[in-house]
């Protein structure tokens, strides 16, 4: 077993997720099942294979770096859970 309930809790913490100890048992077992299936890839020798991270392998097209005003601040802030009209507000950090 790769993913013990403790390991599942630790992974959740890394991902900024909270799961209960009971959930950790179920999710851990499911992850174990899925990762076990993924181990199938070890049947293949890929020593000399270049990894492929994207289907578009030529360098990405870049725009000229020009300043443009595309959005208005109030429109952006309208979706914010909390704002003061100028900034996004988050819980105090210092």
């Amino acid at each position, binding site marked *: 077993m790769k*993913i013990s309930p403790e390991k*599942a809790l630790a*992974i*959740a913490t*890394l*991902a*900024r*997720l*909270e*799961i209960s100890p009971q959930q950790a048992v179920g*999710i851990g077992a*499911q*992850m174990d*099942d*899925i*990762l076990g*299936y*993924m*181990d*199938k*890839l*070890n*049947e*293949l020798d*890929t020593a000399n*294979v*270049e*990894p*492929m*991270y*994207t*289907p*578009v392998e030529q360098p*990405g*097209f*870049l*725009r000229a770096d020009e300043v443009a005003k*595309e*959005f208005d601040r109030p*429109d*952006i802030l*309208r*979706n*914010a*859970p*909390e704002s003061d009209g100028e900034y*996004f507000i*988050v*819980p*105090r*950090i210092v």
Partner: protein
Amino acid sequence: MSQLFSHSLTRIRDLLRSGEISAQDATSSCLERIAATEPRLDALLHVAGDEALAQAKDMDAHGPDATKPLWGVPVIIKDVLATVGMPTTCGSKILENFVPVYDAHCVTRLKDAGAIILAKSNMDEFAMGSSTENSAFKVTKNPWNTARVPGGSSGGSAASVAAGQCFASIGTDTGGSIRQPASFCGIVGVKPSYGRVSRRGLIAYGSSLDQAGPMTRTVADAAQILQVIAGHDPKDSTSVNTPVPDYLQALKNAKSLKGLRLGLPEQYWGEGLSAEVDLACRSAITLAESLGAEIVPVSLPHTEYAIATYYILAMAEASSNLARFDGVRYGLRSSQTQDLATMYTRSRSEGFGEEVMRRIMLGTYVLSAGYYDAYYRKAAQVRRLIRQDFLNVLDKCDLICGPACPTTAFAIGENTADPLQMYLTDIFTISLNLSGLPGLSLPVGLGGDTGMPVGLQLFAGNMEEETLLCAAQTLETHLPKLPETPLV
């Protein structure tokens, strides 16, 4: 006028263009159809009926515009694509109240072409699922049998098109999410080549896999939509700057399959395929042969590794992409905000559903120190082998052909208990996203056992959507038309 909704998109486009019907007629017909079918289907998350009618009225005041190929045509957009002024939830509680400030590039293209955005369609949360049962809001039903799933993740789009709620929908396909629901609901679905359609405003799940594309009732309809949404977008660095052919013109010249080499991969036609899907797809192949196609047996030897490869890469990309949902700039924020870390963690845990959490955790694991090479890098290497399989085969044939799914639409609840079992149903669609190549699912009949639609898939070389569309339309012309869905 009440049956306008059942016309094809190209037919309604022509009626609108000639002034035989008004934009209000087309819009009202779809809205009436939505009112009649939606209580049984649950395909939609937001209907902008009043806005659509007001827009149609305004358009009618000026009359048809011949420069706009979709003038007055009502369409529905999967809720993963950003729409200004309309909620865009991705089927997730974390974005329940999110209203984008810009349109996805393909939505802009549709609007510029004169389309009317009627509604947003239901989906598996963040496009993670194969049945639309993972939506935080509702479970969409299949119009052919409401006890069955419409497929996923673009299940709301597929159901809405099949039921006549609109003339086309834009879906997205990360591992089959256009083609599988199209197959389950008896419609046409196209996953364009990676880079053919801009991903700007497509809320990312797997950035190297995601692609938006048309879901329609006919091949010509799909070609019309693709014509509008394809093309370079300077604001998506993965959008490819190659000319878009005239698909509609190409379709006019497509009459036979003479000289077309159709590759049948042995891995797609054997074990695991249900008898009714096998029969319906083989009948279509026999038809293709009678229309002049040459059948070429081929092999895609790494197919059995595709699901493991896909889920490692997709979950890794998802864990990174979904880090942006943190309760700061948009979306749900938990009431537990005693400190920043708690606010992040609680907001994400309250906002994400179980499947999304599972995939983020798996993605986090395969990217973590000590496991990155064993999982993520390994999968990226196998991805190249899978792509190379396709390129080798496409040296010997023009199109690759196989069933879209091993079975017809399964029952609601049938695969929800075991996530791995659900992943395994994606076997025939997933390799294409890894390779970046284009594919299309075409309805070829109803399964003899379940009476549910069966889809045949065609794959082509990179940027060769034209070949796909032409072959699919030729087959469509000669296949018996599917009966109406049992929905009244």
